[in-house]
């Protein structure tokens, strides 16, 4: 395989995006199906006459590429300086291992298989080394040894540092985002998504090391680092020592759910993005509408309309949804206006509404 250009490769390339999409609303079966089977939500939306509104601006993509390329230029000079300054690397004397695919700005690695192989070799080499030379590794690629995303779950980790503690190698994952880091005012959603991804990397790296039988020789740090931009520039702003423990365990729970969904697959090879039968499966799947859907799902208008028709309290916000749950809005209004409750649940709702 020379370059990733076939539908299979496209599916592989989008693995991380699919996992992110799934994590945005893991309760929704349609979303889970879409992520596992690589059914694009915009295609599903278009098939029922909705206008897809998500997607990325070419400017944003270009900016992201420029930023990442700049970090790894000249043996990752810019990233190295920032990592040393933030305490992620002990010295600027660290080596640079570039495992990026050529199509992603790398210089040597030509294909996915080659990237996987070289990542494996690199892990094996680190496992037997005792330092002291730390390193920055760009874009190691790992295959999650579970059937969570079909046809297979490949992840390209943005960056990994290798340091040594008592002569034992420690790998620390890093997530690179073009988001501006505005100190305490950095968008919480940006931080959350970056941390979630770094947690996913950590878990994937641990699983890969375990599967390769290297767990006795290598440690993965519970902490990671996030690389954002200084506002208005291509200089990195590094957030060190991000505790990824809970994000990694959240990713593990996600893997379990995804695996269950993947196991229920009809045809193990029909994962193309716009395969009509699969699109229909996504459209027919039960949904769990929430406010979060508004930020990523092109099917959200359809689900909102359904929630509206059902008088689902979620259309008044997540809190209203939590409080009223299965009680339709009209009934809630009746209870608020003093109508006799017919169940303990209704009586409880009425009491809460009366008290406030």
């Amino acid at each position, binding site marked *: 395989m020379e370059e990733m250009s076939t539908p299979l490769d496209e599916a592989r390339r989008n693995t991380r995006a699919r996992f992110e999409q799934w994590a945005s609303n893991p309760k929704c079966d349609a979303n889970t199906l879409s992520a596992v089977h690589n059914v694009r939500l915009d295609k599903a939306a278009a098939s029922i006459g909705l206008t897809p509104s998500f997607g990325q601006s070419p400017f944003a993509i270009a900016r992201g590429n420029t930023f990442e390329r700049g970090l790894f230029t000249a043996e990752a000079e810019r990233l190295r300086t920032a990592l040393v300054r933030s305490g992620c690397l002990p010295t600027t004397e660290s080596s640079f291992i570039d495992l990026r695919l050529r199509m992603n700005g790398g210089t040597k690695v030509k294909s996915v298989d080659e990237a996987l192989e070289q990542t494996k070799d690199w892990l094996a080499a680190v496992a037997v080394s005792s330092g002291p030379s730390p390193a920055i590794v760009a874009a190691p690629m790992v295959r999650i040894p579970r059937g969570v995303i079909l046809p297979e779950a490949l992840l390209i980790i943005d960056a990994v540092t290798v340091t040594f503690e008592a002569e034992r190698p420690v790998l620390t994952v890093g997530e690179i985002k073009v988001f*501006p880091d505005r100190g305490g005012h950095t968008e919480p959603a940006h931080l959350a998504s970056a941390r979630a991804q770094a947690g996913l990397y950590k878990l994937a790296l641990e699983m890969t090391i375990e599967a390769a039988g290297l767990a006795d020789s290598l440690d993965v740090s519970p902490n990671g680092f996030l690389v954002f931009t200084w506002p*208005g520039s291509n200089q990195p702003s590094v957030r060190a020592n991000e505790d990824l423990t809970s994000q990694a365990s959240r990713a593990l729970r996600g893997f379990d759910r995804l695996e269950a969904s993947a196991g229920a697959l009809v045809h193990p090879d029909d994962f193309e993005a716009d395969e009509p039968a699969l699109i229909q499966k996504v459209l027919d799947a039960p949904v769990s509408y929430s406010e979060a859907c508004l930020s990523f799902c092109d099917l959200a208008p359809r689900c909102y309309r359904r929630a509206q028709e059902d008088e689902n309290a979620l259309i008044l916000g997540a*809190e209203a949804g939590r409080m009223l749950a299965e009680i339709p*809005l009209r009934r809630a209004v009746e209870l608020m206006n003093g109508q006799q409750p017919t169940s303990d649940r209704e009586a409880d709702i009425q009491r809460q509404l009366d008290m406030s």
Partner: protein
Amino acid sequence: MSVREVKRRLRAWDLGEPIPRFATLHHRVAEPRRVLVVAFVRMAGESRPWGIAWGSPGVEPKIETVPDGRVRDAVASLCANFGEDLLEHMRVHNWTYDPVPKDAGIEDLQQVWVPNGQHLAMFHQLAYAYSQTKFGGSDRQLLNSLGRLSGWLFRDSSRRGSQHIVDASAALREAFSFPAEDARQAHLGFLLAWLTTAGTRDDRIRAAGTAELSSVSPTMNPALERDQLALLLEERRESLGNGESASAQEDQIANVLHEELLRRWLLCSDAYEFIRNTDRKLNPGVDDLVSDSLKEFFWQCQAQEIKIANPDEGKTPFVSHPETDFHGSSAASRYLTFAAADEKYLNTLIHDDAELFSDAVADGRAVRGTVVAVRDEGEGRKTTPAWTVRMDAETGHRIREGGRVVPIGSRKHWATVTGLTQTEIETTVHLEWDGNKTKPITTGIESKPADPAWVGEEVSLVAADGSDITSWRSRRVWAAKDGPGAWLTHGSATAPLIADIASEAAEPILDDVAQIEGPST
């Protein structure tokens, strides 16, 4: 979201239209000539603006754009033009013949209105870009001032009760309860459609749904950038590369951006007019908030500009770094100032707003009860009126022994909670009057606290705020430079001495003592 807000949204859904959230407005709406409505657009992935629209409501706005939002020099010129008008509008020293004075009155309030929080954040981006820039040529001073003012506007926007910068969609959400999800309510067009569309609930839902399809945030719809702007920029690049004129493409880019900016600006202007023309009265407590805002503006912005403009006077200005303080005393002082503003807000407004009072009761900061006993516990000629107040045991409250309460509607009276007992049936609170205890309470039966006629009366009490003490503590931070442990709290900054703004040289951060005492000679 509180249960009361759920209830309001249910009511709004039932009526099919937004309903007033409070009985009064909690934000002053300045007259149009004192308001500058500002809207931004930026290229996706960029922090600086691609175009800006600004102007007073009811007047044609100025709309300026650059062909390529990634070209810093062009963007700096755009921002300099905007900065000149913004600084003059805000009456910042050195940029106007009529700067806001130290003893400014309510009529001196100058406001900036923006469509939503994303536009507000653009001021933070401007602070990052320009507050300490060494570039900009002849515009450098102007850009620095713009950066500093932008930084102050952004920081002050998070101070409770701030009055200078108004996020229009937040102002509408504060004034009305909408029967919709929180995420949708960030869209100004969505909110205005709910408020201004006639007809049924379904008509309004349809109108709001249509309105939210058009982007209001500074970042434009990706499809617009992909299908129009990216192509135009590519053609422009080719033309320039071939040594040809690119004015045709630049005009087209300007037209697209103009339309986007104008839509955002008009929405914000409409929101301003809507709130201005609403028939709800302004809460009388807002005047206090305006006075505080004017003081904040003077000491945190204007006074620094005066020092910068008069270096011969030897006073060191303190220019806040856009990211953080890098300065322990400043951080402590500002924290306490913001905490004081937060404490003061409720107590300033609650006396004239029954809905706000009910919200406070629901979350335990205020209570309703019945006076069951009135005594005078003073000795000799001293009068110390004391009350026993009973409340329903189910009333949740945050009143604590030793705390103070104020009767609603009589903000100058206060009493100390001397005892609190709770049974399964009732909660009994013992109060001892301290503040204004010999003067009649200006609410209820309007009698002195010692009058036994209060027995049997229902009273409403709110926990007193300690904002005066918190404000005092914020000033004491600076005075502590000679106190014990000053070597620790007022020593050199522990954070990097250089504020590292990427690719640009930055001002050294002075240590605390130098800040307080001025530069050593």
